[in-house]
C-alpha cells in the first residue's frame, strides 16, 4: 500500500462575470458591477468561506476578444469588455480577507520585472503572506501596439506549430523564465534581517545583507536590489498556465504551481512526466511543484439541470462554448468523483473556472467543498495563514544569505 494522498488543493479562477461568454446575462450576474470593488470583495469572501486555497484573477493588457490570436480587436458588443488591473484588484481585496491566497495574472512580455517584483512583494505584505502571481505571455501585435516598443509577427493559432510559431513561443517563454528569475532574485535581494535599526551606530539597514542581483538577459538587464524588503513568504508563489512543451518547461524550471488542461487520466500522466522532467533538468527535483488541473464548471443539483444550464448559456452566446480546458457540466458529486480520480492520477489540485459568477462559485463553496470534505479529500479548516503554507511549500531562506538563520 502506498501512503495516502495528501488532501487535494482547490482554487478558483475569477474572470469578469464568469468564464462562459454569456455568463453576464444570467439572472444572478451583476454585469454593471464588474468594475466595482464590492463585486470582487464579495467573490473572494465567498471563496474564503469555502476554505479554498487561493483565487486567481484573470487579466490582459489588450481588451478582451473572442479571437485572442487575431491581429485585430474584435468589435463584438454582446460580450463583457473592459477589466481592471488584476494586481490592484488583488490588493484591494487582501485587507478584507484573512486566509485565502490571492494570485493575480500579470503579463510579462511588455511589463517591467522590477515594478512587478515590488508590486507582488507589497501584495504579500498587504495580505500578510498570501500573495502569488500567475505569469502570462502576450507575444502578439495587438498587445505590442499598446506599448509601441516592440514588434511581433502576426501568427495565427493554426500556425503556432510552424517554425515561425515555434520560434515565437520559444522566445516568449524564454523571456518569461528570465522574468521569473528576476522576480525571484529581487525577492531574495534583501535578506530577512537586513533592517537592523541600530541606534548606536545610526544604521537603519545592514547593507551587507542587501544584494545586487546583476541580471543580464536578452530583453532586460536588472541591477537591483529591490526597493522593497523581502516579503513575508520570502518567495511569493509563482504560477503559470501551460498547454504544451515550452510552457511545461517554464512550469518545471520556474513555477511553484502549473495549471494544465488534461482531458483524460492518460493526459495527466504525460503532462506531469514532462513537467517533472523539466523540474529535474533544472535541478529542482527536490522541490514541490504542484500540477493543478483546470476545469470549467457548470454545476447544478442534477446532471440534466447542469446540461440545461450549459445549453441555455450557449444559446444566449450564439455558439457552443469552447475552452482550452475540460468543460464539466454536472452535479457537485459528479465533479467530486472526477476530482478524486484525477487527484489519484497525479494532479495535486485543481483550479476551477466557474462558468457563471456567482452561481457556480457558490455551488463550489456550498456543495462541492462539503462533498469533498465528506470524502476526506479536502481540509475542514484553514491550517495557517500563508499561501506557501497552504501549498505545503517551506519558506526558503534567501539565495544570497551568507549565514543560515539568525546570527547570534
Amino acid at each position, binding site marked *: 500500500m502506498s501512503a495516502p494522498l495528501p488532501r487535494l488543493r482547490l482554487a478558483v479562477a475569477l474572470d469578469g462575470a464568469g468564464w462562459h461568454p454569456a455568463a453576464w446575462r444570467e439572472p444572478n450576474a451583476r454585469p454593471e458591477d464588474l468594475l466595482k470593488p464590492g463585486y470582487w470583495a464579495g467573490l473572494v469572501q465567498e471563496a474564503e468561506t469555502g476554505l479554498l486555497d487561493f483565487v486567481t484573477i484573470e487579466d490582459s493588457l489588450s481588451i478582451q476578444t473572442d479571437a485572442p490570436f487575431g491581429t485585430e480587436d474584435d468589435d463584438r458588443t454582446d460580450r*463583457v469588455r473592459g477589466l*481592471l488591473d488584476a494586481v*490592484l484588484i488583488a490588493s*484591494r481585496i487582501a485587507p478584507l480577507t484573512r486566509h485565502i491566497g490571492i494570485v493575480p495574472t500579470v503579463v510579462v512580455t511588455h511589463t517591467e520585472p522590477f*515594478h512587478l517584483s515590488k508590486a507582488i*512583494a507589497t501584495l504579500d505584505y498587504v495580505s500578510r503572506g498570501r500573495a502569488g502571481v500567475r505569469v502570462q505571455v502576450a507575444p502578439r501585435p495587438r498587445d505590442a501596439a499598446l506599448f509601441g516598443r516592440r514588434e511581433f509577427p502576426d501568427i495565427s493559432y493554426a500556425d503556432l506549430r510552424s517554425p515561425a510559431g515555434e520560434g515565437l513561443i520559444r522566445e516568449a517563454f524564454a523571456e518569461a523564465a528570465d522574468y521569473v528569475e528576476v522576480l525571484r532574485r529581487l525577492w531574495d535581494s534583501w535578506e530577512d534581517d537586513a533592517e537592523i535599526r541600530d541606534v548606536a551606530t545610526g544604521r537603519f539597514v545592514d547593507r551587507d545583507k542587501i544584494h545586487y542581483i546583476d541580471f543580464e538577459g536578452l530583453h532586460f538587464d536588472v541591477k537591483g536590489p529591490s526597493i522593497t524588503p523581502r516579503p513575508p513568504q520570502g518567495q511569493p508563489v509563482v504560477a503559470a498556465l501551460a498547454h504544451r512543451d515550452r510552457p511545461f518547461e517554464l512550469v518545471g524550471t520556474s513555477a511553484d504551481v502549473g495549471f494544465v488542461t488534461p482531458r483524460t487520466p492518460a493526459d495527466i500522466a504525460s503532462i506531469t512526466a514532462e513537467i517533472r522532467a523539466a523540474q529535474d533538468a533544472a535541478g529542482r527535483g527536490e522541490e514541490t511543484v504542484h500540477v493543478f488541473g483546470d476545469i470549467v464548471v457548470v454545476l447544478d443539483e442534477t446532471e440534466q439541470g447542469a446540461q440545461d444550464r450549459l445549453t441555455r448559456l450557449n444559446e444566449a452566446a450564439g455558439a457552443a462554448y469552447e475552452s482550452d480546458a475540460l468543460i464539466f457540466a454536472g452535479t457537485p458529486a459528479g465533479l467530486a468523483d472526477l476530482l478524486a480520480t484525477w487527484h489519484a492520477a497525479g494532479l495535486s489540485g485543481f483550479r476551477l473556472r466557474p462558468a457563471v459568477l456567482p452561481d457556480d462559485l457558490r455551488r463550489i463553496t456550498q456543495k462541492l467543498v462539503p462533498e469533498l470534505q465528506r470524502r476526506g479529500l479536502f481540509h475542514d479548516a484553514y491550517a495557517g495563514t500563508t499561501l506557501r503554507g497552504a501549498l505545503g511549500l517551506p519558506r526558503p531562506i534567501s539565495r544570497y544569505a551568507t549565514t543560515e538563520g539568525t546570527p547570534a
Partner: protein
Amino acid sequence: MSTVRNDDKPKKQIHLAAHFPGVNNTTVWSDPASGSHIEFDSFVEFAQIAERGLFDFMFLAEGLRLREQAGQIYDLDVVGRPDTFTILAALAAVTERLGLTGTINSTFNEPYEVARQFASLDHLSDGRAAWNVVTSWDAFTGENFRRGGYLPQDQRYERARTFLDAATRLWDTWKGDEILADKASGEFLSTPAAGTFEHQDSQFDISGRFNVPRSPQGRPVIFQAGDSEEGRDFAAAKADAIFSRHSHLEDGQRFYTDVKGRLERFGRRHEDLLILPAATFVLADTDAEAVELAREIRLQQVSPATAIKLLEQLWNRDLSDHDPDGPLPTVDPSENDDLIAKGRASARSHGDRLEQAERWREVSRAKGLSTRETIVEVTGRQSFIGSAETIASTIDDFVQADAADGYILVPHITPGGLAPFVDHVVPLLQERGVFRTAYEGATLRENLGLREPGQ
C-alpha cells in the same frame, strides 16, 4: 500675527494632506515611537489618522533604486519602501473618503500601463486616485529597467508632457455611457469600438483599445512637483495641484503669484490649480516648548554621521574624516559633476555647489557654528513650530495671504506623527471656519473643489 489680508474676500478653505514619512533624514526612525515603514498596519494607521482629520488625501512618494553614497547603499536613513499602486489600492479598502495620491515616474513606465493602473485605482477607490507626475533622467535608476539608459535632461519635461497627454487620451477614450449591460437585449456595449485610440508624438507611437472603461473621476487628479521654469509651465498647463516646497510666507507668496499668473496663458482659471507646499510641524503645549522640541528633533535628524553625509553631498567629495563638531571644510566643493550621491533628486552643478557652500560658511562664521550645527541651521528647518493655536493661526494666515491653498504635512514619526495635529490643530481650523467639518464630496476631485475634467 499680522499678514496682508484682503477683508472683502470670503476666507479660503484650507486643504490638508498627509505625506507618508519618507526615506530621508526628516524621518526620525530612531525614536522609540517610530514603527515600520513597510508593514501594512503602519499605512492603515497613518491613513486612518488622516481620514479622521478629514484630510483631502494622503501622499506616497516613490523611489526606483536604493540610494547610494560613495558607491555604497546609503544606510543612515529609512531604506526600502513598498510599491505605490499596491499600497494605495489596499488602503482604498480601509478608508472611505481619503484621496490616494501616488508619485509615479514617467521615464521608467509606459503610458498604457500607467493609465490602466490609475483608472483601475480610481474604480477600486470609488474616485479617489491622484497621480504626482515625475520624471527622472539618471542612468543609475535606469539600470533596473528594460528601457535602461536614461533620458537626456532637456527632454524630461517633454517626456512628462507627452506621457501625460498620451495617458489623458487613453482615459478619454471611454466617455462613460458605453456599458449597457442589458441582459435582455444581450447588448453589453453601446458601441463596438469603445476605447479605440491612436497616439503619436516625439516619445510614443501607440494604438489599440484601452481596456478600462471610464472611472469615477474620469481621470485621476494630476499633481506636479517640479520647481523649474519648465516645471511651472507644465503645472500651469496640465496639473490640478502643485506639490511645492515653498512653505514659508514670502517665498510661498512669490511662487503662488508666479504660477497662478501663468494659468491664463493656458486658458485656465485661477481656481483650476491648487498650490500645496510640503510642510513639517512641531507641536507642543506652548510656543517655547515647541521651539525647544524642534531643536531636539533637528539634532535627531542631523546626527554627527548624517551631518558628514550631507556635507559630502554638497561638497561632492569624500569627507569621511571630517570632524562634525569642527568648522566647515576649508577645501571647496569638488568640480567633478559625477555626483557622490546617487538616486537623489537634488543634483547640482559645481557653480551652484560653490555658491551654496559659501552661504553655509557665512552662516557658520556669523553664528560661530560647527559643521553639524551649521547643517542643523541651514537645512530642513520645520515649517510650523508652536502651540496648536499658533500653528492653526499661522496656517490660516498663510493661506489667506495666498502663500498656499493648503499644506501637505510631513510628520517625522511613522505612523503616528500626524495624530497630534489632527487632534489639536484641526479643531482650531474648524473653529475658524476655514476647514471642513465633514467631507463635502465622494471623490477627491470634489473635495479639492476642482471641476470635472473636460473630455
